[in-house]
């Protein structure tokens, strides 16, 4: 009945261990224990998508996942989207298309859009908007975000 436990999990391809309490969310552990502050806290009730990460191949909001649930999971965060070699197409397209202003929602949008493009490499505008409906942006009005995802889909097709 431990309220405190050591969790072993894989994040962005690396196995890590961290200590957490049962009441802590994955979002809290990522940011506070593991220093992975790219994942943002927005609403903390599952509405805004700023804390989106990939867990066992599926996008989830990490504010509604307990840290202990991540035991032996496969996680991917915004830090795992680019590489040492440079930015991912999605990050580049968000930058070039000015698809952000304050930037708090951006990591969640990019992780979610990456999940979309892996599932559906050539989405329609409607499909992009539906897939990103769980991510809120209070600055840009979404059009630039949708265009950035469309551009990234094109860029990924060309780079293949």
């Amino acid at each position, binding site marked *: 009945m431990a309220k405190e436990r050591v969790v072993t999990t894989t994040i962005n391809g690396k196995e890590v261990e961290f200590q957490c309490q*049962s*009441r802590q969310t994955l979002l809290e552990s990522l940011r506070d224990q593991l220093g992975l502050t790219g994942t943002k806290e927005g609403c*903390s009730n*599952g509405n805004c998508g700023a804390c*989106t990460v990939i867990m066992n191949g*599926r996008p989830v909001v990490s504010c*509604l996942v*307990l840290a*202990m649930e991540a035991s032996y999971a496969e996680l991917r965060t915004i830090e795992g989207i680019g590489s040492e070699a440079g930015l991912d197409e999605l990050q580049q397209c968000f930058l070039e298309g000015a698809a952000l202003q304050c930037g708090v929602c951006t990591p969640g949008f990019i992780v979610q859009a990456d999940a979309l493009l892996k599932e559906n490499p050539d989405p329609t505008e409607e499909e992009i908007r539906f897939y990103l409906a*769980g991510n809120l942006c209070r600055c840009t009005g979404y059009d630039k975000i949708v265009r950035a995802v469309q551009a990234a889909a094109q860029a990924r097709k060309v780079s293949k």
Partner: protein
Amino acid sequence: MRDFDYEMATTLEEALVLMSMHEPDIRPMAGGTDLIDHVRNGHLSPERLIDVKRIRELNVLELDDEGLHLGAAVPCYKIHGHAEIVSRYSALADSCHIIGGIQIQSRASVGGNICNSGPAADATPSVIALDGVCVIAAPQFDREVASADFCTGPGQNVLEPDELLVEIRFPPQPPHSGSHYRRFIPRNEMDIAVVGVGASVQLDESGQTFLAARIALGAVGPTPLLASEAAELLVGQPVNDETLSLAAEAARRVASPITDMRGTAEYRTHLVGVLTQRVLRHAVARARGEAIEYQPGH
């Protein structure tokens, strides 16, 4: 967040033992998308959460001669991504496609939706319309409860503290049958139903006469409601505007909505009529094997 214990159960037996420890407020957790939020905002204060989503019986997703076995913890994305469920239990797939956003659908389950027993739950009207039966396990004896009788009030249901919803079983769908769920919300996605309606219909071979129907309403009463009279009115009647409007009128009579920030009681009652007709039209089209023009949220 308030302090609590977390325990992962790996077998049904283990979960039932943990659930029967007489601690105050032990709660099973599947996807946690409602539960974790409720604990955080102080709406619930469990001493212990029992994670049940790794239990084999709660992850069953099978179609056989008995119909569909849907494990209580199966996440929504697996349901709306299952081709046979989409074609044979369409209303259920419709619901799972619009619960929360994609991230929520990765974790949220139909079993959890029913057990949270929210009056505006999107899956429950579909489960009732498709005549789902809730299969409940307990340390002493298991039991089955019709989905229409499962919820007893806002956040309330028939489960005893040591009982666990294991699966929802749906009867086989007869030939020439179809179903649909839709809700009205001011946005296109990611919102709580102002009104939701689920319906399933069975037509005769010609596709012109109703043989059977079930209609269920969400967000217009303390629990999702089975509109029995509305469905019975359809039996033996021709598929036409007049029949549909009679059913809609009967569905409106069942609705007993409250006025809140999502809509007035009058508005909701009006919506019940509009949505009942639209949902029946789509269920009929599916029963006839016609393609329907439907975008989730519209």
